[in-house]
């Protein structure tokens, strides 16, 4: 009696493990009358495979997203509107409560400025030059920072050699490099790119190192057991495993790069959005100051948005990672 119940119980266990899909996934095929295994050897059981209706999953996701997104968009719009209203009423009534709106241009004045200057050659050239400087400095920082970070993270000896220098240079803000940079580089353009590079470099380097260190060691072991050589380990395990942290570094680095670039342009520049803003201040052209600021904000937003998008495209698996890295 005991034996039969036990065996019956065991046979009835369906090998069915649902993937943690959203609740909308429809799992069909429950083996209602699982035939009692009669053969001696239980051949690799034809497992009941949870079949998921793709359409329903998508519909569920869509419904969730649109609802979520609607609220997100609403809150986002409200926060921008609040800032705008504060500016609008502040300048309309010329508020003076410690901060002074006396000289601040109104939104309308800035808009006028945009329509006049906005499409002028000078303004667009300034933007183009700033973007070129950012991209050059940022990509050089990435090309040096990521491989160096991987090497420092992987090999203690490389770390021993490079980290003391890095730790001394890191606390020096990029702006403090301006005089040295002007001395060091043959022309103004190279000096500004160098300062942008300095700003982007350290966040990228440190996050890459952190990415290597936080990589689960069992993955490295597994790769070695599967015959991965040192170089292949880097390309196939350490790099993709560190990628989420590398992208954090790239996003932070991009932000610091903009800060550094604008400061450098204001101090030493010809051309560039920072120079445009500072020049407007010198010429007492108040609406142009605000236009310059808004331009910097939009460009910075666009750059970090691009990095985030590339990250999503390169790391599709993160959508399923526990804790939702995204």
């Amino acid at each position: 009696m005991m034996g039969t119940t036990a065996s019956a119980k065991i046979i009835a266990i369906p090998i069915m493990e649902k993937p943690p899909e959203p609740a909308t996934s429809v799992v069909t095929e429950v083996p209602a009358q699982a035939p009692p295994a009669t053969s001696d050897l239980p051949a690799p059981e034809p497992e009941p495979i949870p079949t998921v209706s793709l359409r329903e999953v998508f519909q569920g996701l869509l419904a969730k997203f649109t609802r979520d997104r609607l609220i997100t968009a609403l809150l986002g719009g409200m926060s921008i509107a609040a800032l705008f209203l504060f500016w609008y009423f502040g300048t309309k009534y010329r508020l003076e409560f410690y901060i002074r709106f006396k000289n601040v241009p109104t939104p309308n004045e800035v808009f006028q400025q945009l329509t006049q200057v906005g499409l002028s050659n000078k303004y667009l050239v300034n933007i183009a030059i700033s973007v070129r400087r950012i991209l050059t400095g940022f990509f050089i920082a990435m090309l040096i920072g990521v491989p160096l970070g991987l090497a420092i993270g992987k090999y203690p000896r490389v770390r021993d050699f490079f980290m003391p220098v890095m730790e001394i240079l890191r606390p020096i803000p990029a702006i403090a490099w301006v005089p040295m940079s002007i001395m060091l580089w043959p022309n103004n353009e190279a000096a500004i790119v160098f300062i942008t590079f300095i700003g982007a470099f350290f966040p990228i380097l440190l996050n890459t190192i952190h990415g290597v260190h936080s990589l689960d060691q069992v993955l490295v072991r597994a790769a070695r057991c599967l015959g991965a050589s040192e170089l292949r380990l880097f390309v196939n395990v350490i790099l993709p495993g560190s990628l989420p942290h590398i992208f954090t570094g790239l996003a932070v680095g991009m932000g610091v790069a903009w800060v550094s670039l604008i400061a450098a342009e204001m101090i030493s520049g010809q051309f560039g959005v920072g120079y445009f803003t500072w020049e407007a201040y010198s010429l007492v052209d108040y609406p142009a100051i605000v236009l310059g600021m808004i331009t910097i904000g939009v460009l910075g937003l666009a750059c970090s948005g691009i990095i985030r998008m590339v990250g999503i495209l390169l790391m599709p698996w993160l959508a399923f990672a526990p804790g939702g890295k995204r």
Partner: protein
Amino acid sequence: MSLAEVETQKGFIDVRDMGVTFGANDNKVIAVDNVSLNVQPGEFVSLIGPSGCGKSTLLSIVAGFVQPTHGKATLDGKAITKPGSDRGVVFQQYSLFPWLSVRKNVEFGLKMAGVDQSKRNVTARSLLDLAGLLSFENHYPDQLSGGMKQRIGIVRALATSPQVLLMDEPFGALDTQTRVVMQEILTNIWQQFKISVLFITHDIEESIFLSDRIYVMTARPGRIKAEIKVPLPRPRRAEMTDTPEFMNLVQELKGLIREESLAAMGPELKDRGLSGFGMKVGPKGVGEIF
């Protein structure tokens, strides 16, 4: 699929007079002391013992992650010095690469060996079919349950056709139901591949159900305390766990392990047993509590 009747059976693991010491001087810890064991070609051998007895260390040596302090480990007569694809390893923690799809995970070893894409694809798909997970080939590991991940871990280790499979408590993180099923799946796969297996566990029933032979280890420093043959017929079925032969083996192993588990908790406990500490089954009355 069956690679039946391989004439020259390979996969002979031989561990001789193995000793492993960690640290130095005052912090010196003897993890494994004078252990000799072997796995015959095509044999399923379990290593069982209390936690911290050095059984995982032993497996790490055979896998090639750790070098022994003295003694040596060989595979088919060749000394083991570093990890390699001739030894498939399945870890207790899920060790699938989260950035690769299920199929790419299974293909990984073949890719490292320079096998071209179309061949990799065919091998990986047939192995996934064997694991009953072909329909999940394009999923990412994070979309799967623990039992699924571990099945993929097993077939991934088999993809490069290793001579031996080393398993370090592979089902330790699974729930009891899944575990029972996984054990049956593993015996099936093992019979199809005719591969030598060294299996680490602390689960007595699991070791009996799966193995041809079981080595029992002592508490630290780990030594081989007993070697037990499992005479149960093959193929093994889940119902066998209710037979008297099975139960007797469980009792025998329980006796051997319990002593070591007590020893692992401290020498005083071993000498006196639990009752030696004046532990009682329960208070007899209110007066005894206060």
